[in-house]
């Protein structure tokens, strides 16, 4: 047997890998689910090209004038058909040629209809030979990094780091306790710190695969930007994962049954799913609860991940967030070591 084979830390860590890889559900939730979620959200919130507005006109000349604007799609119809098309929403505006000029029929409570009115009028005036009195120029901005998918990818990453660390640690420990395996292990000469260290080691290796797969996907498919240092991003992921591992250890340090552990786990994670700004910005919550929201580890993690990926901030620029994560790591780990139930 090689030296590695006889090392208990190696054996314990291999056990963690084997147990993880032989659990198909765990693989799905850790690796596949976050990617599916990103795909779903990416499709739902994709940026559409600027809408072309449907309008109608009573004469071919008027239709021609309107169609000259790229923002409009115009068709010719008589007034009765036009009124009907308006009522059914097929068109937003009907331009009627009158002896004195043009009359617009539209619903002024509908923002799209008001837009159609502005564009149509501009087109009609231009066709009549009106020149703009001020020369203007349009600069179109479709910047990556400001889209919803760019916002949500760091959020999902943070959420996934939380889930895999907490479930990975918490569930295995409580299961081992419930099945008296924990008791059997401490009845052997196994160094107790190695048991806990094996979780952290396996977590770190899994983390590499998990984060690389998810972010790689986000980069290739959605072109999500990485503006900050990749090394610091990796460091942030490790810190986040360790902080949530410590929290998972704390949650599972006393629970004797899986049911109790699941309850505690959800109780811990649910507020963070809602409050920590995974899907929308945490700053939408009222000012009174902001200090609480900011102190949550997931808020700190997601804010820091967004800071790195979207704003290109370096770690020294985010000391508060890194500090909050580190504090959670140290306090949760210290408390759980103190109260941990080995049997």
């Amino acid at each position, binding site marked *: 047997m090689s030296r590695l*084979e*006889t*090392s*208990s830390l*190696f*054996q*314990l860590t*291999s*056990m963690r890998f*084997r*147990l993880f890889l*032989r*659990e198909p559900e765990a693989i799905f939730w850790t690796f596949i689910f976050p990617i599916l979620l990103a795909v779903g959200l990416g499709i739902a919130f994709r940026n559409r090209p600027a809408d072309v507005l449907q309008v109608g006109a009573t004469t071919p000349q008027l239709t021609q004038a309107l169609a000259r604007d790229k923002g409009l799609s115009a068709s010719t119809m008589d007034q009765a058909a036009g009124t009907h098309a308006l009522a059914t929403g097929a068109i937003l505006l009907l331009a009627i040629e009158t002896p004195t000029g043009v009359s617009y029929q539209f619903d002024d409570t509908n923002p799209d209809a008001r837009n159609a009115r502005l564009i149509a009028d501009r087109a009609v005036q231009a066709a009549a030979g009106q020149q703009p009195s001020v020369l203007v120029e349009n600069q179109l901005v479709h910047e990556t990094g400001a889209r919803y998918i760019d916002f949500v990818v760091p959020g999902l990453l943070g959420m996934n780091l939380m889930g895999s660390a907490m479930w990975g640690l918490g569930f295995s420990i409580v299961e*081992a306790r419930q*099945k*008296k*395996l924990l*008791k*059997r292990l*401490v*009845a*052997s*000469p*196994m160094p107790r710190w190695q048991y806990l260290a094996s979780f952290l080691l396996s977590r770190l290796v899994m983390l590499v695969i998990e984060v690389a797969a998810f972010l790689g996907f986000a980069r290739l498919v959605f072109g999500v930007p990485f503006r900050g240092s990749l090394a610091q991003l990796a460091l942030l992921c490790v810190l986040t994962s360790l902080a949530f591992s410590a929290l998972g250890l704390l949650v599972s340090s006393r629970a004797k049954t899986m049911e109790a552990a699941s309850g505690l786990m959800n109780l811990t994670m649910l507020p963070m799913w809602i409050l920590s700004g995974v899907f929308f910005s945490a700053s939408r919550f009222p000012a009174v609860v902001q200090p609480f929201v900011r102190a949550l580890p997931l808020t700190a993690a997601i804010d820091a991940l967004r800071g790195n990926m979207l704003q290109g901030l370096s770690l020294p620029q985010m000391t508060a967030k890194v500090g909050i994560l580190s504090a959670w790591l140290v306090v949760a780990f210290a408390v759980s070591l103190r109260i941990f139930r080995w*049997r």
Partner: protein
Amino acid sequence: MTATPSTTSPAADRQTPSLLLRGLRKAFGDVAAVDGIDLDVARGECFGLLGPNGAGKTTTIEICEGLTEPDAGTVELLGFNWRSHAGELRQRIGIQLQETQFPDKLTVEETLRLFRSFYRRGIPVEESIRTAQLEEKRNARVGGLSGGQKQRLAMACALVGDPELLFLDEPTTGLDPQARRHLWDLVDQLKQAGRTIILTTHYMEEAERLCGRVAIMDHGHIIALGTPQQLIASVGGEHIVEFAVAGAGSSHARVDAALLAALPGVQSHRVDAGLHQLSVGELHTAVPRIFDALAHQGLHLSELRTHSASLEDVFVGLTGRTLRDE
């Protein structure tokens, strides 16, 4: 099997008892689970703690294993105590706990390799697999093993560190008779290899079959201690005659117990729910006398059984209860 390790420690002296307990006490809330136990187990002994569920066997053995802290008393294993030499002791004892479930998705070999890695020295994993007769199941997942195979795996995990002292807590509880006999053979092998074994059981036949000496426990006390033969002899006879008379209810009151007990060859008499139990030295002389005595009293037998006296009868004689009616 590798020989018992040579070590320079004076504690390895053959004179030091493997286990020494003095004034051991442990209470859970108001219940005294272990209530003043003194015990010595010599090297190479196979010692049994026998008693009904709730007698305090598991608490006692877990205190010995260093898993439970006693409220009072001294525990010494191989001349060491848990306070000062926990690390050393963990290396030198092997433990099988009641109802440990090893991870279902590991194989037998992986599980043993894991446990082997905890010990500085021990037997090769292959040898532990052979000893536990799990060769065919080496690459099988633990989740697919039968109850008996799981128990043998637990035993193999206790053996990989080549322990000087082996604790087995109810090793055959819940196994079918064939799996139980299989495990007994395994314990026999370990005894022959000269290991000290301390086991708990609530099966008297298991204690009789395996143990050189037995302590019978009840309500946290040791109520009898000795070889199975000594304990059985203490009942007074080698055989037990059980009978009931026809016309139960009031009729059994007419059986003259004093007369029966006074018969030559009858050592004791007790009655439990209409069933009379006599312990006798020789069946072939005592039974005809009992028949005669009953006939004289005008009684007719409705039931008659005899069996060799066992530890069960010792327990019944001491407590008035059977081992299993808890």
